[in-house]
């Protein structure tokens, strides 16, 4: 059977499964639609959160980032997991006790202000829409590579599938498809990793293989990798870095941002009890960790494999000839994600760090090298992994289905957060409070459909800044939503004026810092300073600024609240009541 047919079977089979689940889990009420009826088991919910959280960025891009950056990009591993500790202890149980359907609803009620709710809705929509673009683009890559359709057709197929189960089933349909998608994506991610770990180290458990001995050389695998890449002028993989302040702040921004992203928070409204919300966070992290503990092993092993492919006789010998390159390089060249240019016309592929001037002027010059000749996009590392390691073709089909599961499950979660903010917070909360249950359910479905159409259009015509908007999503969540939610629970003194002033100043500060370096509204050429480490204030990158934005938000909110009058008694009683689990009941509309 051809590789193409195998890919079709795996992807088609998984899509069929999602649609069957959707038909089974049709939503009959707004409660089904927003919180899956409120009766999801904590382990099931943990698995759904895992799929909801692990996006195209986690599945496709993260290992590539770590492979390229080594130790310094461990920030993604810690940042995207450490946020769950904050969620479990600072937000999830209390918001579950509050027992409403959306994040802006809590902010609006706690700060007794429609304006606060509106600010939260805007933050939610901007963060979620920017995030969803990346998912659609990721799905497009997976389609164009594995199913030999152009990415527009691929995206439309993906959108139709999401449309069916998200519009029909709402949170209920999404939750149960996400459980299936979690299983598909984790199997797809770990099986190639187990094979590769076995091949390189003889240890079938990738996180242990990462610290084991490389079978061919007898050296620890990380030492071998360091040796190979430093021979080629690259920085050592495990080396410590100088700018620790930025590393700390970047990790903190990712953690706080993770805890403040609404599409994750609303998952905790679906469990029956407050105690379940706590357990759910733990289970979610267990399921997420299965991938996150494997990713660093995939990163270092794939990078070593790539180097051995190019330099089969060792770094001191000649690299391979272009005509003799393996088939996977050829297939990826067709997608443009691998590019070769024979700069010194010797017919061989030289890969080295041509930005290392000392190396370029010594070793590279002696060997007649005229620049790095192979440009490999970080994003292909996981997708090409089975081919690089010569794994059987069904593993490649599995990777295709897994990448799509990761992208679609996150997209569905984000779309639900967007549509519930529109139908519940905007339409029912402001425009038409007397809307009937049936009317609201219809409004929720229509806004979901509109959101899917917009997301698909943005996926087909990705704005030029698609890669930078993830920083924006985390910056907004960290600087505006997380502090407002946390203060709403842990302080009785913070009032409406303080909360709104805090959210707006945290947001303004964060956006301004990002735009100064990345361009205003990301329009190229409008940045005030070049986006390089020498120009950053105290060496703090625009990606790391969300943590400082959160501190600005907290500080402004406290100062303003203390200068104005304290919240009314019934609000202080509301804060009291979210702190104690007793009497939670299930998520309520009123």
């Amino acid at each position: 059977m051809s590789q193409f047919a195998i890919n079709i079977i795996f992807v088609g089979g998984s899509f069929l499964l999602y649609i069957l689940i959707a038909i089974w889990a049709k939503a009959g009420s707004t409660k089904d639609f927003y919180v899956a009826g409120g009766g999801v088991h904590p382990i099931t919910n943990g698995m759904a959160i895992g799929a909801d959280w692990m996006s195209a960025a986690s599945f496709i891009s993260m290992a590539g980032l770590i492979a390229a950056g080594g130790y310094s990009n461990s920030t993604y591993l810690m940042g995207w997991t450490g946020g769950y500790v904050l969620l479990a202890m600072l937000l999830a149980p209390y918001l579950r006790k509050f027992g409403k359907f959306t994040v802006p609803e809590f902010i609006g009620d706690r700060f007794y202000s429609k304006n606060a709710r509106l600010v939260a809705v805007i933050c939610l929509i901007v963060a979620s829409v920017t995030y969803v673009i990346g998912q659609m683009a990721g799905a497009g890559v997976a389609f164009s590579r594995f199913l030999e359709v152009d990415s527009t057709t691929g995206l439309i197929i993906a959108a139709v599938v999401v449309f069916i189960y998200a519009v029909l089933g709402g949170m209920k349909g999404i939750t149960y498809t996400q459980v299936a998608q979690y299983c598909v994506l984790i199997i797809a991610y770990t099986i190639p990793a187990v094979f590769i770990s076995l091949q390189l180290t003889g240890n079938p458990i990738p996180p242990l293989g990462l610290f084991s001995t490389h079978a061919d050389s007898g050296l620890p695998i990380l030492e071998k990798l360091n040796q190979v890449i430093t021979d080629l002028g690259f920085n050592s993989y495990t080396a410590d870095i100088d700018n620790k302040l930025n590393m700390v702040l970047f990790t903190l921004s990712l953690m706080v941002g993770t805890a403040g992203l609404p599409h994750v928070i609303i998952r905790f409204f679906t469990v029956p009890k407050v105690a379940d919300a706590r357990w759910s966070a733990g289970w979610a992290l267990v399921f997420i960790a299965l991938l996150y503990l494997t990713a660093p092993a995939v990163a270092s092993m794939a990078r070593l494999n790539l180097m051995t492919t190019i330099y089969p006789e060792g770094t001191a010998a000649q690299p391979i000839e272009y005509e003799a390159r393996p088939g996977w390089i050829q297939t990826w060249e067709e997608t443009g994600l691998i590019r070769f240019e024979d700069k010194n016309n010797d017919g061989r592929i030289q890969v080295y760090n041509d930005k290392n001037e000392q190396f370029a002027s010594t070793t590279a010059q002696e060997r007649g090298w005229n620049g790095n000749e192979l440009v490999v996009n970080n994003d292909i590392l996981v997708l090409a992994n089975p081919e690089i390691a010569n794994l059987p073709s069904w593993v490649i089909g599995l990777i295709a289905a897994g990448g799509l599961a990761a992208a679609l499950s996150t997209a569905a979660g984000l779309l639900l957060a967007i549509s519930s903010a529109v139908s519940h917070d905007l339409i029912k909360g402001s425009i038409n409070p007397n809307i009937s249950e049936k009317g609201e359910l219809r409004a929720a479905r229509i806004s979901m459909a509109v959101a899917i159409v917009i997301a698909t259009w943005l996926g087909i015509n990705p704005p030029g800044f698609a890669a930078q908007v993830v920083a924006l999503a985390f910056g907004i969540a960290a600087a505006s939503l997380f502090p407002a939610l946390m203060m709403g629970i842990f302080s009785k003194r913070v009032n409406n004026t303080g909360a709104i002033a805090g959210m707006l100043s945290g947001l303004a500060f964060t956006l301004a810092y990002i735009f100064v370096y990345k361009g205003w509204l990301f329009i190229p050429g409008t940045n005030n300073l070049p986006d390089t480490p020498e120009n950053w204030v105290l060496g703090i990158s625009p990606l790391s600024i969300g943590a400082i934005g959160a501190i600005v938000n907290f500080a402004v909110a406290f100062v303003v609240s203390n200068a104005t009058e304290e919240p009314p008694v019934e609000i202080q009683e509301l804060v009291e009541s979210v702190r104690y689990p007793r009497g939670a009941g299930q998520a309520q509309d009123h």
Partner: protein
Amino acid sequence: MSGHSYDAENYWKANLRLIFGSLIVWALVSYGCAILLRPMLAGITVGGTDLGFWFAQQGSILAFIALIFHYAWRMNKIDEKFGVHEE
């Protein structure tokens, strides 16, 4: 609040103490061992590199899981002790 039959104030204090302790460990494994204290742990080697690298790519994640389950388990006990647990 006086309207409650349970000791609300001490319940909340117990929760805050537990959170505070947990977040110290949370910061220590990630910002501490994996980043700021890495040079101090450089002497301890783990499979071709040092303990700080292991914390950055494995250890901190494992510690986060342990922290959440410990918190959930302890909080359930505290809920019961103060009689604020759900039926």
